[in-house]
Each structure stands twice: as structure tokens, then as C-alpha cells.
């Protein structure tokens, strides 16, 4: 005993060993937060570049000396003087000071700068080709104002920035052209209205002209993002003519390897494919489907997510469009995505699967062949609720479009048991979809004259109890559907002309024409 105490004492002196893991974790988090705060304060102080010429630098940077707001107001007064002056040097200085304020991480004074009436001057600076520094600072300042709310963006547009920025795209100074790309991206991202204004102003050819083998990666990243915003938003969709203009370049960009470019290019495709089948057709006609399926396996979540979304959109189209995705190998990739650690990925994969399962039985057969049933059942059993909801749709669609044999296959895979276990969820819509699936399974059983067997199986799996309880559900449609099921398949005791063939616990479905038996 004494020995044990000595050992305990010694162990408690070590930094980590012998300490309560929860306490250790708490300690680590606290330390991490302290470090982060200290670092943040340090960089915040560095970034506050207050142009108070009368004060030496150290004092200006001290938070004790001036509160941030007062400093900002004083700064803006200086800025107004400078920007409104006639001297290029002052204008540049003022513009740069404004840009720095507007680049602050927290609460950049967008409204204050707008209210100070500086926007017209900034926009006029954009056209001063002989003063590139001034152009650049003005472009940067306006970019950040346009990054605010719709109101902020509106101010920028209403002061005539759009034609000026489009002209700047052609600037021989790459960093200025790039700034214009960014600003236009913010304006396009505001919504369909400004997006279409830009398109009307022929922004697309001007942007596409900047793509060349020599274009630096950073520039291409900004460009791709801006292009994606021009593809974004519905009500209305972008004009088809604009889409046709952009697509070839998007395809080019999709074959690069930079992850940021790939991510934004995939998002663009996801926006373009998020529509009716005509929109999807325009996309798949480019032949991009293979590359999208490839990108579904990309190591970066930021690339894989929009690639998966794009393919999900494509398989929500016609059977032919869906077949293109299947031919490109989507069914080989889907299982691992259905098992992905991130719930949202699992959910999207299940959604895509549910749409493929809404196809003809030939495609359903491909689902079975490519081993999509086991991951589907796993999702039904242990996915998070949103994933389970999509998986349930997959089951119902499967039972609706599948052949009798395919439906039996589905039941054998454990899907029936899994959906029965989901009958206790609160979501009435999901319950209805499950009851639909069960109903469809009974219809398949009817073809084989084996409804009795299925009823027994459902009962054995606890389904009868649950469905009986659902007859008391609040939702009318649920109660109705449950009631119908009970009446049709769990009502009478008499067995009408059904070939019964039980061997112990095995439930055999026997087909009247052929000697196949399906065992559970």
C-alpha cells in the first residue's frame, strides 16, 4: 500500500500520464484558445494601419490609446480629404487607406465609406489607366464593398462600376485585371438580376479572353469562381446562350488539377445541372460526365462534394442521362460515398442512388450487380436521419420499378427489416414512403401468390405491430395507408389457393411458372 501511494504521487508529477483525460483535454483546449487569442491580437494590431500622420506608429497601434471606432472616424475624415483632392499622390494614399479599412476582418466600415460619398470617386479612378496604383486600390476597395449585403453591392453597381470593371478586365496589369474579375464575381453573386446585367454587358467573352496557357493559377482560381457565380441562381436560370458560351471553358478548367479551380468549376456544373432535363442535356452533351465521376473520388472534400452534387443532378434527369452516369462508372464510386464519414456526403449519395433506383429495371439490375444493396441497408440501419430518409426513397423507388425477382432480392438483403425499424420515426412523409414500399413488396408477392409468406415475414420482423399502431397516427394519410395494409394483407386467416411450402424457419417464395425459390 505505501508503495502504491508513492507511485501515485510520482505519476501525478508527470505532465500527462495519470491525469484524467477529460481534464487534460480541457486544459489543452484552454491553452489553444489562449494561443489563438494572443495570435489574433497580435495580427489585429498589425493590421490596423491608421493613417494619423501626427502620431508616431507605436502609439497609433496601441488599443489603449484610441478605441477602434474613433480611430476609424478620424481615418475616414482623412481619407475623404485625400480622395477628394486633386493630387494623385493624395488620392492614392486616401484610396489605399480606405482599402485597408475595408479589408479589416471584423466590421469593415462599408456603410461609412459609402455614406462619405466616396464611391463615385473610386469608380472614376478605375478608368485612370495611367495611374495603375490608384486603379488597383480603387478596384480593391470597391471589391470589398461589393462583398457586403445586397444593398452594398447595389451601391457599387449604381455608381457605374460595372462597365468600368469590365473594361479593366483587359488591363495589361495582371493584378488589376484579377481584381476586376473578383469584383465582378461579387456583383454576379448577388443574385440573378445583377448576374444577367453583367451577361448583358458581355462580361463572358471578356472573361474567357483572359484564359490562356500562361494565365497564373491564382488568376484562374478567381476567374473560375466568378464564372461559377455567372452560372449560379435560379428564378430565372442564366440565359441558355450564356451557358453555351461558358461551358467549353468550364470543361477546360475541369481538366486542370488545382483543387480550388476544380471545386469552383464543379460548383458551376452543379448549378447548371440543377434544372429541367433540357438544362441537364446541355451539360451532358459536353461529355463531362466521366470527369465528374472521376472527381467524385477526389481526395479533397471541396472537390468531391460539388462533383457528387452534379452527378446527383444528372441522375435526376432522364433514363438516358442517368445511363450516361452509370456508363461512366458512378455505381463503382457510390458505395464508398455511402459509407463516407461525413453525414452530408452519405445523404447526397443516398439521394443519387434513390434517383437511379427510380429508373427502369435494367438500371435497377445494375444497382444490384454493382453491390449497392449492402451499403443501402447499412445506411437504413445506421445513417443519420437525413440519410435514412433518402435511403428510404431508394427502397420505395426500387420496389416500384423493380421486377419481382429484384424486389425479392431487395427483401433478402435486409432492406425490409431495416425500413420496418424506421416506422417509429416522427416524420409522417417518411412513414408514408415506407408503407408504400411495403405495399409494393406485397404486390410483387402477389405475382408469385406468396403474400401469406410475406405477411408472416413482416410480422416476424415486428412490422405488424408497428403498422397496427400506425392506425392511430395523427396524420390521416398515415392512418389510412396503415389501415389499408392491415386490411389487405393481415386481415383474414384463410389462405386462398396459395402454395404453402415451409421448411422450418425458411420462408420460400415459390414462383408458379418456374422452380425458383427465394429463401430469407
Amino acid at each position: 500500500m505505501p508503495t502504491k501511494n508513492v507511485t501515485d504521487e510520482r505519476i501525478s508529477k508527470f505532465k500527462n500520464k495519470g491525469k484524467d483525460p477529460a481534464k487534460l483535454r480541457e486544459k489543452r483546449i484552454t491553452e489553444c484558445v489562449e494561443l489563438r487569442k494572443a495570435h489574433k491580437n497580435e495580427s489585429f494590431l498589425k493590421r490596423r494601419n491608421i493613417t494619423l500622420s501626427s502620431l508616431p506608429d507605436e502609439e497609433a497601434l496601441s488599443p489603449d490609446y484610441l478605441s477602434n471606432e474613433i480611430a476609424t472616424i478620424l481615418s475616414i475624415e482623412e481619407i475623404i480629404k485625400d480622395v477628394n483632392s486633386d493630387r494623385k499622390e493624395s488620392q492614392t494614399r486616401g484610396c489605399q487607406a480606405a482599402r485597408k479599412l475595408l479589408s479589416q476582418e471584423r466590421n469593415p466600415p462599408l456603410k461609412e465609406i459609402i455614406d462619405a460619398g466616396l464611391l463615385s470617386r473610386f469608380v472614376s479612378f478605375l478608368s485612370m489607366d495611367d495611374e495603375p496604383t490608384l486603379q488597383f486600390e480603387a478596384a480593391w476597395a470597391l471589391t470589398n464593398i461589393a462583398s457586403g449585403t445586397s444593398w452594398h453591392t447595389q451601391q457599387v453597381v449604381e455608381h457605374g462600376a460595372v462597365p468600368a470593371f469590365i473594361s479593366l478586365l483587359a488591363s495589361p496589369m495582371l493584378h488589376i485585371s484579377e481584381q476586376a474579375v473578383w469584383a465582378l464575381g461579387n456583383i454576379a453573386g448577388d443574385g440573378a438580376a445583377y448576374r444577367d446585367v453583367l451577361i448583358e454587358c458581355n462580361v463572358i467573352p471578356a472573361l474567357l479572353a483572359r484564359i490562356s496557357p500562361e494565365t497564373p493559377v491564382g488568376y484562374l482560381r478567381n476567374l473560375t469562381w466568378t464564372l461559377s457565380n455567372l452560372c449560379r441562381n435560379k428564378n430565372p436560370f442564366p440565359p441558355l446562350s450564356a451557358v453555351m458560351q461558358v461551358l467549353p471553358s468550364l470543361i477546360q478548367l475541369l481538366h486542370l488539377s488545382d483543387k480550388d479551380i476544380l471545386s469552383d468549376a464543379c460548383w458551376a456544373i452543379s448549378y447548371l445541372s440543377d434544372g429541367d432535363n433540357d438544362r441537364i442535356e446541355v451539360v451532358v452533351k459536353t461529355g463531362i460526365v466521366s470527369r465528374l465521376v472521376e472527381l467524385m473520388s477526389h481526395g479533397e472534400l471541396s472537390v468531391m462534394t460539388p462533383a457528387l452534387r452534379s452527378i446527383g443532378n444528372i441522375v435526376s434527369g432522364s433514363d438516358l442521362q442517368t445511363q450516361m452516369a452509370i456508363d461512366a462508372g458512378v455505381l463503382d464510386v457510390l458505395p464508398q460515398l455511402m459509407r463516407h464519414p461525413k453525414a452530408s456526403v452519405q445523404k447526397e449519395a443516398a439521394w443519387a442512388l434513390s434517383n437511379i433506383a427510380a429508373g427502369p429495371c435494367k438500371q435497377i439490375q445494375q444497382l444490384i450487380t454493382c453491390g449497392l444493396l449492402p451499403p443501402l441497408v447499412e445506411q437504413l440501419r445506421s445513417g443519420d436521419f437525413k440519410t435514412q430518409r433518402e435511403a428510404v426513397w431508394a427502397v420505395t423507388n426500387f420496389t416500384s420499378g423493380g421486377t419481382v425477382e429484384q424486389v425479392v432480392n431487395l427483401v433478402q438483403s435486409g432492406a425490409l427489416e431495416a425500413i420496418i425499424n424506421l416506422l417509429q420515426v416522427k416524420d409522417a412523409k417518411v412513414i408514408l414512403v415506407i408503407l408504400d414500399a411495403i405495399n409494393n413488396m406485397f404486390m410483387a408477392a402477389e405475382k408469385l401468390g406468396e403474400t401469406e409468406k410475406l405477411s408472416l415475414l413482416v410480422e416476424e420482423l415486428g412490422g405488424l405491430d408497428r403498422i397496427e399502431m400506425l392506425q392511430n397516427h395523427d396524420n390521416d394519410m398515415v392512418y389510412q395507408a396503415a389501415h389499408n395494409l392491415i386490411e389487405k394483407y393481415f386481415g383474414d386467416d384463410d389462405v386462398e389457393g396459395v402454395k404453402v411450402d415451409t421448411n422450418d424457419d425458411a420462408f420460400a417464395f415459390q414462383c408458379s411458372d418456374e422452380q425458383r425459390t427465394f429463401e430469407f
Partner: protein
Amino acid sequence: MGKKQNTKGKRDSQESQEEPEEFVVEKVLDQLAWDILADNTWEPEENLDCPELISAFLESQKNIKEKPAPVKRKASTDEPETEAKRKDVAEKPRGFARNLDPERIIGATDSSGELMFLMKWKDSDEADLVPAREANTRCPQVVISFYEERLTWHSCPEDEAQ
């Protein structure tokens, strides 16, 4: 024959028959409506008056859709995960942030209000301005070289008086 199975909402509608009594049900219907209609109107186009052929046909098509056909569902309205607008906060790497080694200072200016050095970097043609106070701590020897190169000696007042 293919017609009966293609009742998905997305497919193009097949042309309906010219005869007024027959028509092909193409829209997606719910279970109840389907049950009602199936009894009355669901007939293969070729077999209008041959019930034996009809039932034989039924038997051979085990995947007959008496059930409501599945409809493809479009993307949910969850917002995409990319920003629609982006603020440009990055200080474009200038000066020491470019992580290059200082080679030598080639000029100085204080027109911005603060003393700045024009720094030539190793392995780069692009020189840019850095604040003197930063250079003083980061590369004092380079700063000293700059000043030493430009030291000028003034003659003392006695010599000038001569």
C-alpha cells in the same frame, strides 16, 4: 409494350392513339387513382379485344407497373457550400511577406509618411518597398550596408571658413 412501363414524370409523352376510347396513361398517379383506372383503361394497344392475349401478356411481364411509378426527385434546397461573395482581405504578399531573402537596399523614401526602403531580393527581379523599422530588425546588416554606402563626410566649420 414499352409504353406501359414508362409512366415516369420525366419521359416524353407517347402519342396517344387516334381512337377516342383508348388512351395510354402516362402521368404518375397515386395508388388510389391508379387502382381505379387500372380496371377500366389499362390495355395494351395491340390487344384491344383479346382478353386471353392480355392475361398471357400480363403473366409474361412480371414487372408490370400497377403501382405508382417512381418519380425522380430534384436536388433539395439546402444551400450550396460556396460563398456567393468574397471579401478580399489578403495583403497581396509584398515586402517581407513574400518570404524572400533580402539582397540589398537600393533606395529609400518617406513620401508615404513613413521611411521605406526599396529592397532588392535574392532570386527575384521585382524590388518592393518595406518599412524601415521592419528592415532594421529583420536584416540590420543589410540596412547598415545601405547607410555605410551613403555616408558622406562633411568638412568641419573651421575648414570651411578657410
